[in-house]
């Protein structure tokens, strides 16, 4: 009984936004604990940089921006409770999330609860409109790239850079997105009229880190045939373990190109200088844009975090910029007005002008292809060898 009363007292009032002078809170949903705590940390830091910069310029509608975070590492159940808790305490502008399951749980809820959600990392297509179709959720927006856009842009660029590579081996996590992405990668080459043959495709379970057997197979396969490429479809600790276990075999050099989609840069950083030469396609790296906005973002981020910003930091930064622009445009902080303003909004960002499509709710995210190699003497422990920006307008012409 005491417990129940205790809960009641810490309930918090329902929605008290609308008072001018009060700060506007942006709620960050993401992993604070667990294996992806680093992602959540970057989300918070990126959002905080945006809030600080905007507040220094006078805030939004004369009000300061505040960033609060809740942990959603435990899964969709924790995520939906976090969304409800945020909304109940008056925070209706939400960003973040990492896993598809969490995003799929949050999107309908945000519609129901009169809130707004901008995600940059959840790659699942069904969150926003695809191929010009209307967005399925009126309050969910994507300030980031879809998984397909990422993969297809990568395939296109790599295919052009390495036209002689026509056979690929793959090593990937055995999960829905893993299979989807690999199939899309292969399909993209076929669609471009330069089909690739699949050599060996190896699938590993996600919650396991011992890849010795698979790596042995791959080491042998890498010597079979000529002009081969390797596609690595793991992420995070999985990729790190793969590279660490592959190191003694020294077989990566048998491949003309090693590609991996997604958040690879932090993994390369953590390998402390021993990362191999890898081509990675994702939404951002600090060297991609030579604009004053990007310089300011990178400098401020390094001052806060001690490291350069990565995609996780960038998409959160952009999401907060989007909210600030939308609230200004709407002239109010009512979620309905802000959502209406977000549809079709344009605002300044490190990549230039950023647009969110009014119909599909997709943001004009570029894809950044980067060639990196570990370097123990670099302050980041990774040398950025080359960066290719594939503008959003190019990605929309791809067929998916």
């Amino acid at each position, binding site marked *: 009984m005491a417990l129940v009363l205790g809960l009641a007292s810490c309930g918090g009032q329902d929605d008290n936004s609308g008072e001018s002078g009060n700060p506007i809170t942006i709620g960050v949903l993401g992993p604070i604990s667990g294996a992806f705590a680093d992602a959540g940390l970057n989300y918070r830091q990126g959002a905080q940089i945006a809030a600080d910069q905007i507040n220094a310029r006078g805030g939004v509608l004369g009000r300061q921006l505040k960033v609060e975070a809740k942990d959603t590492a435990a899964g969709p159940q924790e995520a939906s409770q976090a969304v409800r808790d945020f909304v109940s305490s008056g925070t209706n502008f939400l960003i973040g999330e990492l896993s*598809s399951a969490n995003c799929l749980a949050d999107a309908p809820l945000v519609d129901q609860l009169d809130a707004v959600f901008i995600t940059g990392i959840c790659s699942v297509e069904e969150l926003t409109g695809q191929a010009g179709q209307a967005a399925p959720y009126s309050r969910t927006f994507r300030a980031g790239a879809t998984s397909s856009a990422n993969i297809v842009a990568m395939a296109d660029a790599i295919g052009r850079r390495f036209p002689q590579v026509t056979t690929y081996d793959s090593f990937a996590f055995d999960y829905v997105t893993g299979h989807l992405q690999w199939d899309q990668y292969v399909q993209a080459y076929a669609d471009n009229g330069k089909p690739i043959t699949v050599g060996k495709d190896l699938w590993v379970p996600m919650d396991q880190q011992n890849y010795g057997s698979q790596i042995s197979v791959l080491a042998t396969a890498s010597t079979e045939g000529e002009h081969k490429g390797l596609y690595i479809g793991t992420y995070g600790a999985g990729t790190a373990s793969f590279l660490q276990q592959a190191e003694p075999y020294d077989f990566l050099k048998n491949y003309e190109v090693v590609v991996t989609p997604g958040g690879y840069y932090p993994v390369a950083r953590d390998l402390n200088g021993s990362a191999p030469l890898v081509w990675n396609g994702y939404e951002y790296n600090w060297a991609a844009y030579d604009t004053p906005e990007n310089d300011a973002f990178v400098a401020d981020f390094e001052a806060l975090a001690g490291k350069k910003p990565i995609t996780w930091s960038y998409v959160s930064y952009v999401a907060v910029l989007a909210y600030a622009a939308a609230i200004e445009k709407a002239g109010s902080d009512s979620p309905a007005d802000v959502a209406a303003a977000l549809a079709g909004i344009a605002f300044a960002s490190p990549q230039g002008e950023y647009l969110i499509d009014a119909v599909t709710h997709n943001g004009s995210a570029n894809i950044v292809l980067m060639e990196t190699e570990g370097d123990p003497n670099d302050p980041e422990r990774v040398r950025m060898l080359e960066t290719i920006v594939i503008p959003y307008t190019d990605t929309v012409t791809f067929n998916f």
Partner: protein
Amino acid sequence: MSIDSLETETAPAPARRDRVAWLARSGERFDVPVVLLLAGLVVAFFPTNLQFLATTMLIYGLLAMSANLIVGWLGTMTFGHAAFFGAGIYFVALMKDFHLNPLLLVVSAGLVGALFAAFFCVVTLRLSGIAFVMMTMVFGQVLYLLLFTIKALHGDDGIPGVLPGSLFGFNLLLPKYFWWYALAVVGVCLFVMRLINRSTFGYAVLASRDDPVRAAALGLPTRSIRTRVVVLAGFFAGVAGALFVQQQGIASSDTLYWLNSGNIVLMCLVGGRGHFFGPMVGAVVFVWLNTQLFQGINYANLFIGLIFLVIVLAWPDGLSGLPGKTRGLIRRLRAGKGGRP
């Protein structure tokens, strides 16, 4: 039946004693509806996010109570209980496009859970002790892996878009209505558990837990008792699963992971497996600790672990043993002062 009934009561005058006894018996028989009704009324005044939280606690409470049939009544651990929970969850999720009556789904999910439990019992008929416990873990993990192998179950993406529907005209999407719906379902389940607990069968279960040799010698069919209890546990876990997915709207694979099964056992132990409401208390505490109290601290596990450690060292019978222990403590203090206890 529960441990607190072992305490001796002082004896008031005969007529008063009869009335008191009658009240006590009725109280015990109807404690489930009374407690839940009280809880229901209190929560009805909460803001919606706390109603949602309370509903989650209630559903986990039912799940923990169902696991307690194995942990408390049978006295054996299980690391695969999330499998029956998951069976209920995924069954209802797969039925989402048929727009069936929510109560019908709940009952069917319970039957699915019971079916899985029955299958499990057939496989493990000759096992006991650590071997049995290990098999529960294997069973749970194999079902978890199947979520990824069977493409129709969508692995880690899960199955989203599960709508609870409406009942008697009330839209169950709204937490305030869903709360009463869940309360009613859980209430019926707990009431049934109470009845079984106090029936001859219930006594037989306890007897075979407390002294399996003597029970077998007395002719109690210990194997069939275990089977029936596990099947019942599977049924209630399936019901909990149905409620869970109806509330959350998405079936996700992490609910079947073996660590989740471990958490369920923990709820029983923290709350007290020897007390009827123990697991419910454990579930409330557990959910609150994990999702509310230390929300936002990345090393929260340090404090949660510490709290559990204190509980296990100070109150190994679980939190619901607290009232009994406090009464005992007060009695000892009074006796120590020279008065009659």
